[in-house]
């Protein structure tokens, strides 16, 4: 199985106090963990790539832990999550799809019993490509106050033979959430949706 070779890690944290409205009593926080790895399949078509998902699991756990730390250390403070990948130009979109299982598994593992599907996005792009990572509530995808996104990117990544892997966690609703819909307090928590 290919070894996971890391070139660079980035942790980005945003702390949002207001957006023109009342200042939040507890600021809304978002954190992203970005890791740039070598793409073991760059430059050629490889049929069987699934095994690399297992290789990525320890990295996913490490990234999820770093996000909890960046948000203050308490997994219970995390209410939203999302994930994404940018594949360098010598790779294919399918290589980004390798991140679904290890990225999602890692966040659920670290957050305990998170029920909602981890929303995700991916693309092929050059160094500096930006990715808008979709964010939803960790236990009920329909919680409207938690629909959000965080833009991430690294100026010098991904190079052609690299993949940029991303995980995102947030501490709550948008800072001035007020468009109704299912509330976090109304979650039934059975199907991961409501």
């Amino acid at each position, binding site marked *: 199985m290919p070894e996971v*070779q*890391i*070139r*660079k*890690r*980035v*942790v*980005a*944290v*945003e*702390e*949002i*106090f*207001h*957006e*023109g409205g009342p200042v939040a009593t507890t600021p809304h926080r978002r954190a992203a963990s970005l890791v740039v790895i070598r793409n073991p399949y760059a430059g050629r078509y490889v049929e069987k790539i699934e095994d690399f998902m297992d290789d990525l699991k320890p990295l996913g756990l490490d990234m999820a832990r770093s996000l909890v730390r960046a948000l203050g250390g308490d997994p219970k403070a995390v209410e939203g999550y999302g994930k994404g990948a940018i594949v360098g130009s010598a790779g294919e979109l399918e290589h980004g799809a390798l991140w679904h299982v290890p990225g999602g598994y890692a966040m659920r593992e670290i957050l305990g019993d998170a029920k909602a599907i981890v929303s995700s996005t991916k693309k092929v792009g050059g160094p500096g490509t*930006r990715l808008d990572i979709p964010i939803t509530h960790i236990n009920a995808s329909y919680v409207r106050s938690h629909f959000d996104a965080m*833009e991430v990117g*690294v*100026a010098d990544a991904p190079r052609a033979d690299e993949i940029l892997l991303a995980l995102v966690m947030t501490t709550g609703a948008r800072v001035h959430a007020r468009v109704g819909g299912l509330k976090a307090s109304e979650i039934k928590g059975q199907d991961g949706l409501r």
Partner: protein
Amino acid sequence: MRANIRKIATFVEETSTEMGQSVNPPTRRAAAIAVIENPYAGQYVEDLSELMAIGEELGELLTQRAVAALGIAGPSAESYGKAAAVGENGELEHAAAILHPKLGTPVRRVLGKGAALIPSSKKRGGLGVVLDIPLGHKDAAFVRSHFDGMEVRISDAPRANEIMVAIAVTDRGRPLPRVGGLTKDQIKGEDGLR
């Protein structure tokens, strides 16, 4: 706080491999960025002392955030830099008022020393504008291994009436420095240059 802060973002980058060569220990740099209201947006004001006071306040806050993000003590930081981006309703001079008169003293207080000029850049721009924060060794500006830069951006800032203020701090120079010049073990540390 005199500054009306909408948001604070921090970024940490850790480079562990460069061109296939291991970087051990990894080089790390951090930037902390505040997005604040520009009290002089949309008008010409002769006396910019309010922004100078805000600069002093942010010098301390952002340096503390950047050092905390690296997880090191202030005096262990090796290089630094600062930058500001003014939204479209402000003037470049507003960035100058924040960065130059009073911001440096608290930066140096947090970092223990800092004989060298803090390299800086500034611009006016719209949402998502890129800031390249110049970096130089904090005690001797001529240390060649530490000439560097860190790119940062925040997708939703600066709005027209805002200013983005950034401070970057590192625990090391470039990943694989090999272009000669003054090295950090040769620093005399008297004039801030060598």
